[in-house]
């Protein structure tokens, strides 16, 4: 490896300006939303404000957290290929504690506030007369919800921090020999496995049930969490692709080449198909059985006011990646990958939109421009924190035992 590699990322001035501008837009959107809806005495009106915050914070929290899942999954599989750009998902996962705190505050405000429009099950009076919710009250209770939320966000942040620390511990003291290298890999494997266990118990099972599915508290689907996970993982890969392309265009990540971008593109392609598989499985079983207590979920979405978003999301999240990302050349083309990454992140944001909003607002689609504004705020926040995290460590994990495998990676 040549010594002329630019390891130290310097944030371009325009980058910070854009990030701050986006955050200002976000704050303005939240403020406007609060004035028009949030401050209203009508619970249905103010629920629209909280639903927007819930959708955006949960979505972007799960998306940035997917970066750490990517790192841990490849670590556990002993995959060496992402190492040349590994600092990118590491930096993105550093956003988890920041959005985690925001998301926690929003969730607590919704759970413990006196507005029960979003989470019906928080209304003790109502639950008493509702046999179904009464049966679920062990799981859907404020105490369990809070404990799970704290544990989840805390453990993601903690284990993510540990994985980042392990990676950076080699930067200034290279491993002296093969035995130490084996020990290092083993240590990484153990921590990555711990993270993945937590991940499986949260994102892949309980957390989407608590945070999102409980909006439609009577309804349930066992496919829901996997579907949410697939949604956020593919958007997370798209986010990694965006940052890799951004750094490449600014002359960093010299050792990351088309081969690595091709593999990131493959993840975007494959998990778009995987998402569709789960989305469709959930839909088809309910459509086939046609039981009212299950179809109630799809009534406003597939046929009601949200049908436009519902089917547009299907085109953006499945048809477009399937046809555009299928070719080898398009996965190696910066423009195509950037365009598709933006499209996928937007498409899965729409997916979350139609998960959250038909609960508090089943009769009409709220004015979506506000939510765009809030989303842009979160995008600015992710840009800002990720940019700062990128400057804190060299862009190349040059002493990792698998680094050579990544440099000579070939698809």
């Amino acid at each position, binding site marked *: 490896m040549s010594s002329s590699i630019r390891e130290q990322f310097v944030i371009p001035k325009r980058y910070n300006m854009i990030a701050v501008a986006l955050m200002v837009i976000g704050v303005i959107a939240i403020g406007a939303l609060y004035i028009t809806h949030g401050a209203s005495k009508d619970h249905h009106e103010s629920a629209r404000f909280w639903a927007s915050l819930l959708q955006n914070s949960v979505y972007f929290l799960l998306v940035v957290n997917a970066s750490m899942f990517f790192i841990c999954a490849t670590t556990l599989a002993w995959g060496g290929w992402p190492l040349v750009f590994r600092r990118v998902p590491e930096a993105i996962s550093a956003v988890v504690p920041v959005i985690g705190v925001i998301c926690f505050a929003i969730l607590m405000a919704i759970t413990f506030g006196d507005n029960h429009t979003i989470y019906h099950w928080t209304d003790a009076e109502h639950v008493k007369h509702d046999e179904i919710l009464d049966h679920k009250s062990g799981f859907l209770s404020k105490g369990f919800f809070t404990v799970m939320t704290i544990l989840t966000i805390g453990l993601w942040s903690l284990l993510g921090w540990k994985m980042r620390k392990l990676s950076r511990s080699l930067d200034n003291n290279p491993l002296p020999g093969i035995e130490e290298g084996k020990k290092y890999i083993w240590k990484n494997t153990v921590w990555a496995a711990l993270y993945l266990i937590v991940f499986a118990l949260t994102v892949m099972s309980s957390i989407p049930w608590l945070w999102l599915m409980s909006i439609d508290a009577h309804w349930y689907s066992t496919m829901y969490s996997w579907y949410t996970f697939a949604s956020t993982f593919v958007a997370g890969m798209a986010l990694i692709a965006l940052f890799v392309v951004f750094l490449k265009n600014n002359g960093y990540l010299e050792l990351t080449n088309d081969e690595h971008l091709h593999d990131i593109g493959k993840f975007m392609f494959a998990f778009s198909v995987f998402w569709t598989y789960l989305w*469709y499985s959930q*839909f*088809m079983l309910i459509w*086939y059985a*046609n039981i009212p207590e299950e179809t109630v979920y799809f009534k406003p979405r597939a046929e009601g006011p949200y049908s436009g978003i519902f089917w547009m999301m299907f085109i953006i999240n499945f048809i477009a990646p399937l046809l555009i990302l299928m070719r*080898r050349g398009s996965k190696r083309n910066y423009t195509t990958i950037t365009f598709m990454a933006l499209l996928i992140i937007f498409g899965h944001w729409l997916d979350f939109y139609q998960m959250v909003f038909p609960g508090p607002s089943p009769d009409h689609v709220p004015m979506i421009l506000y939510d765009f504004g809030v989303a842009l705020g979160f995008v600015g926040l992710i840009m800002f924190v990720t940019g700062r995290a990128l400057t804190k460590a060299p862009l190349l994990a040059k002493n990792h035992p698998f680094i050579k495998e990544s440099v000579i990676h*070939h698809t």
Partner: protein
Amino acid sequence: MAVKKFITGNFYDEEVLFPAVKKARRAGYRIHEVFTPFPIHGLDKAMGLRDTSLHTAGFIYGITGTATAVGFITWALTVDWAINFGGKPFFSLPAWIPITFELTVLFASVGMVLTFCYLCQLAPFVKKDHFNPRSTDDTFVMALETTDKTNEEEVIAFLNNIGAKEVSVEYRETGWWLGRYDKDRKVFHKD
């Protein structure tokens, strides 16, 4: 049947093979094929082979499968023998998606296997000739094509020069089954 002359070089090491392939191409020789005991990443690029069209064929087979499934089920369940399943409309696309998916995969996979065999000139009972049986074991064989004007001595010297351990002149019958070595060694070897 026309008989073609090839000059083959047997290389013992990948590290030698890669520069040799590049040198042979730069010198203007036409490489008929390089036979290796295992796939070597990047050799296709070094040899200047174009991308395979196998995936395009796969896409077309897949689309054919999709069209076949949707077309046939639509015809069967709405025109030919319409049955009321649980009050659903006759044209119930969601119920057909799994079968459509399966048929897409089936057409694409079977079609691609057959196309692959055709592109690699593989068929039952056809023995592929790779000039030197050791290319199935531990060495790499590069076969250069020749014309009437080729100076044999020069090519042999060139191959020796770029690192070939064994060099030989071979004659093969042309055609897509190019050279079945159980046969043409006896018949076509010009002494």
